């Protein structure tokens, strides 16, 4: 049965069984490959997307369970949180880059809830997002920087 998903502001038809995780719907059926597979067990955060603005691990949500609007890394650039991507570029965060879609989606969810997070709040929000290249110090700086920019914008 084909289902209609609302992703990044447009409708997409997904013709896959209901038990397929959103991660593989995005990647294999819809060609939205910015969302990455890292572990399949919600232990690395590489597959993080938003459902109704909240960060979720797309490897843990099945097609049949989805209700609401999905935002992926491909849609982040059209949101208020594109400012994070700008900060990521200014701080030259990415190395291999594979985890960064997930890091950005998690950071976007954090700043939506908490526009000026402390170091401890950043640690707590970002702790589920693994980076084997070790870009954490720059991620932290980029989040602080984006928060300041958002505050200046009012």
């Amino acid at each position: 049965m084909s289902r209609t998903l609302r992703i990044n502001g447009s409708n997409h038809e997904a013709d896959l069984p209901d038990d397929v995780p959103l991660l593989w719907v995005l990647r294999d059926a819809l060609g939205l490959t910015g969302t990455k597979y890292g572990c399949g067990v919600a232990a690395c955060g590489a597959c993080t997307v938003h459902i109704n603005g909240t960060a979720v691990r797309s490897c843990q949500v099945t097609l049949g369970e989805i209700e609401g609007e999905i935002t992926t890394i491909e849609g982040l650039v059209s949101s208020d949180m594109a400012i994070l991507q700008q900060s990521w570029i200014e701080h030259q965060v990415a190395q291999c880059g594979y985890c960064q879609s997930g890091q950005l989606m998690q950071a976007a969810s954090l700043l939506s809830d908490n526009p000026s997070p402390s170091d401890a709040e950043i640690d707590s929000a970002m702790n589920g997002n693994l980076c084997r290249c070790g870009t954490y110090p720059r991620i932290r700086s980029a989040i602080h920087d984006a928060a300041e920019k958002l505050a200046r914008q009012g």
Partner: protein
Amino acid sequence: MGRIKTIARRSFLVGSAAVVGGVAFGAYKLRQTPENPLIDDFGRAALNAFVIIDQSGVTLITPKAEMGQGVHTTWAALIAEELDVDWQDVKVLHGPPAKAYYNSALMGMALPFFDYRLTDFRQGIREVMGDAAKFINLQLTSGSTSMKDGYERMRLAGASARETLKRAAANRLDIAIDRLSTANGQVITPDGSRLNYSDLAEDAAQLTPEKVELRDPSAWRFLGKTMPRLDMELKVTGKAEYASDIILSGMRFATVRMNPRRSGMISFDAKAAQKMPGVEKIIDLGEGIAVVATNTWLALQAANAVTIKWQEAEYPATTELMLEDIRAALDAEADAVQRDDGNVETAHQGIEISAEYELPWLAHASMEPMSAVAQLDGDTLEIWCGNQIPSVTQKDCAEAIGFEPEQVTVNSTLMGGSFGRRAHTDYSVQAARIAAEMPGVPIKLIWSREEDFRRDYYRTALAAKFKGVVQNRAGLTLDGKIAAVSGLTGPKGRHLLGAYDQPYGFPNFRIAGHAADLDVPIGYWRSVDNSHNCFFMESFIDEMAFAGGVDPFEFRWNLISKEHQPSANVLEAVAEMSDWQNRKRSGSAQGIAFGYFGSTPVATVCEVTEQDGDIRITKLWVACDVGTALDPGNIEAQITGGSLFGLSAAIWGEITFRDGEAEQSNFPDFQSLRMENAPDIDVKIMENMPYLGGVGEAGTPTAAPALTNALFALTGQRARKLPLYHQFNL
């Protein structure tokens, strides 16, 4: 005697291959430029193998694989510096497998000299040896050699292209070449009119490339500065394309399940899997099976639904049994002695100490599991994969399906991490074999995370015994024996980089390698031998310092300063950064470690702090000397990342075996540092070394011993085994 013997034997090999018998004949032959691989492939004007200029602009070709280390950006800056193009106009392509892309630095590394004792004469020999890499097609991104390899070649490529374009303009306009200048991708005439490089490219391609001289570093615009990475925007918008992101029309999705005991398959039953709607093919790969389906999730489910009887492992079934073999190798005769200064056997008066160490097997655990896309059409195979070794990938894929290498096209994609793992070709060969079973159908192979852990090529486990003598507060004797599964960086027993080649002036200094005979698959792991040997050396030297009642910084400095000044300088720099003199603060402690990786001396100080019974790593200071800092921002990122990689392994990293299988299968049982426990890191980059040093791996070796030495200072407990979570509350 031992040292003379070992060096003499290797010198003979070098001599007969390249130096004595080779220079007159070989220098000519060696220095012939191999065939330009880009003319046929791209069908447009290619000035040389590293620069393409056409109507769409200037494209720089890098044969180096981008796994996160920033090589594409710095390699491009080397070419662009001389070519006079604007940074925003630079495009980079990863070149095809080709002889023109040999790695001259890596071959040069396989010489018997200690890097820190390189003289100009020896550097010359190393360069000739580097040229020999052409003949064995060593297009390898490994050993942190990319910048060493490209530093001159890429600037020459850029300069030669620029001068040839000027020559083409001079011919066309009938103007003397020295009246022309270049900027922003254009040749500028005395009257200020401009000709685009792209308009001159076809003419230039007809000319013999100009001989050129390189610009003085004082004129550099890009090099020496932090350049924005060319892949950054793609990586923050989800558009960067890794092998697992390739989409081809009509593509099918595959996964494999191979024997976790690394031997064959007795039988398998795929009936249940075959019944799953959307499963298209199940393929017997001998050591396991492949499933091809209409999506990856289904392929993963179906692979798990196949019942398989595995053959038993050909190595001992448990970690403990493997370690017994490794320990036993320590008691057998040495397979290699790579340093034997003075005489470690003579009795010397002083404080004698000894210690035994053990290190575990380690996985690479790159964020992107192994993946490759392949399509077979008639008598050609095309493959897309992230890899550190395109020419071997081409050859291995061809062999696996009965093709000649020329029938296989390898497209090297970005890598979602590698750390040495993608120097192997197993996953690419699997994709080729699956594609060969389904001609005309593009196949995307993605491994499960579990497969990625169970079928890794692990960093070897090791055992070591060190003995030493401290006399009058100074290091007199160091005698180290190191046992490992061997053979990655030389013949058996020569897993000793990072130990024998360290600039410590012990009057009696011996390092011996013992090869354990185990069939566990091993591989290069970020910083290779240095990843373990730096831990042994720096732990033991710390123990010697404490036994002699000497400050650990001072003890090292006294041994290093008489041997190699730039190394002593990085040690001093890190002591100054960390305020080592005043390090004794309540509740915290610091440890220091030094390591010479490739041509890069590195010193690290780690600070640990006790809070409510838990120990936190609160700060890391790292000083490194890279000779010439081509991109300081990227160097800082690499040293930081390499240090955190080393800390992750030190605290949690281990692969253990039971029933011949790795017990770890996913990130919950192979932990790494996360945001909350990653310490702040200050990096100082120095430029006193005479040659360029690599940075992608240099931060890793010193991280673990700096941490364990800090833990000793804090708790009085020595960590002689890793990972530390067994012993400390970290």
